[in-house]
């Protein structure tokens, strides 16, 4: 899957996150989070896992997290990918 257009998913509510995607020549993951000190490593691992499963190798992935659990990260990122994606 390729990120061909800008897209976003999610909310800024507590325990949720916003995912912003845009096309880019290389894969860049940027994480802002209320629990960055405690959980950045797990947030990053989850994002990388979803991108790998979807075969995304390039694009700018920007996440603004308000303490979302893994399932919410996965759901928001997959939704954003579907909105951003081309065949």
């Amino acid at each position, binding site marked *: 899957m390729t990120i061909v257009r800008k897209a976003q998913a999610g909310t800024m509510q*507590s*325990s949720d996150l916003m995912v912003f995607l845009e096309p880019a020549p290389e894969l860049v993951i940027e994480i802002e989070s209320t629990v960055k*000190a*405690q*959980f*950045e490593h797990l947030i990053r691992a989850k994002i990388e896992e979803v991108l790998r499963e979807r075969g995304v190798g390039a694009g700018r992935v920007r996440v603004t997290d*308000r*303490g*979302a*659990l893994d399932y919410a990260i996965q759901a928001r990122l997959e939704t954003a990918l579907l909105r951003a994606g081309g065949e």
Partner: protein
Amino acid sequence: MARNSLGREIPERFGGKPLVPYRDPWSTRPAADRATRPLRRADPGDKKLCHDLREAIERAGLRDGMTIATHHHLRNGDHLLNHVVRVIENMGIRDIRIASSSVHPVHAELVEFIREGVITGIECGVNGLIGELASKGELRCPITVRSHGGRARAVASGEVPIDVAFIAAPCCDEQGNMNGLQGPSAFGSMGYAFPDALHARTVVAVTDNLVPYPAAPVSIPQSLVDLVVPVQRLGDPAKIVSTTTRVTTDPVGLQIARYAAQVIEASGRLRDGFSFQTGSGGISLAVAENVRALMRERKVKGSFGCGGVTGYFVDMLEEGLFQALFDVQCFDLRAVESIRKNRAHVEMSADTYANPFNAGAVVNGLDCVILGATEVDVDFNVNANTESNGYLLHNTGGHSDTAAGAAVSIIVAPSIRGRLPIVKDAVTTVTTPGETVDVVVTERGIAVNDTQPELKAELLRRRAPVKDIRELQREIYAVTGTPRALDFEDEVVAVIEYRDGTIIDAVRRVRT
């Protein structure tokens, strides 16, 4: 550096004073008399009334290096502390310590005066920006956090000698008789100001409602008051309500409240004579609603409700479910209205409420107390001071006082807040020691401390979802993942004093 009995590293000195590490909740005994202050003499015709705060501060003899106090009944609506410090700065006085009963986000204005060296120490807990900046190492100003009972103790013993107390008086006459019941800034109980009136070297009543003599009823009498100052406005009582004061509608919160009520039921204490305290948070109030329903159903006649008082407790008093309310602080305007009209709604000093070093505090008679937490740990220690980011953001309030006093102390909290697990291996900061915490209730289950084997057995008999606290922690971590520990510098920015004056923890600068 010494380790206290909870394994926390405590510096030998802080803010120029030697520290005694915490050992346990009970063994520290007072070894001195009450602090004294000079006697005064006032003769007929002597005038207490000052033109403005500046004149009062001059007449009070406030100088560099002294300590002032205010009280926080107007909470985030308080104008007085900022006003007093502005005048102090304007007069060129420096190096002042603040020993108020609490500091709120509205006092963020003080940051500037701390940076300028007008304020150089805070002898009380802080809510909001000041604590956050201190935690980041951006303010040079040692902070000593005290519980409500601990502050009353420290003021009475002279450990914190207050040179000038500024008491916000919503209704006051020119001799200094005052109450909190009447006037545009009426906030109800003046409980936290009583120790100041009794022990400060100079007592200044500040009022926006100067009434013809006598101001009655009298909460604090003229014989304790040196000076009286009129001001435009003490504050905004509509902002007393700074936290949630409605029953939660969140299903997680409601589940926790049901479990907590189950714990109270199983404790066997919900019978005639029942005494109870909750805070003003949404879950606490939901527990109160459940307890109220149980009391009605069983026709239980309770003895007293206590603490910061909300409209929910007023309803229970008026319904006859309690004989009396002991009120150190009104949490909402319905409580203010009630203390004005209900004789069984009793104004209580912070000393009577919670000081461990007097002839008997009200907290000692509590059956159950419901308390919140930002974190608990597998030893049942509770953190109510720092957030999980390590910033000092909350004052202790009556947390450690009521936990020690109540027969059953119950912590209610959601198991996860914004991915942060409530149960940790070790809390970031100990506010209240686990040996005084009996039960932790989350929506995933109830953990009972080994201090309460009978309660645990009874809950199991009732098929309540009792879990070992480590099992509860594992279950939560399975959802959140294991958090990485925060990184702290060695520098101590605040100490958390236990109610007996020993140091239960130190707050260190967060490494950024």
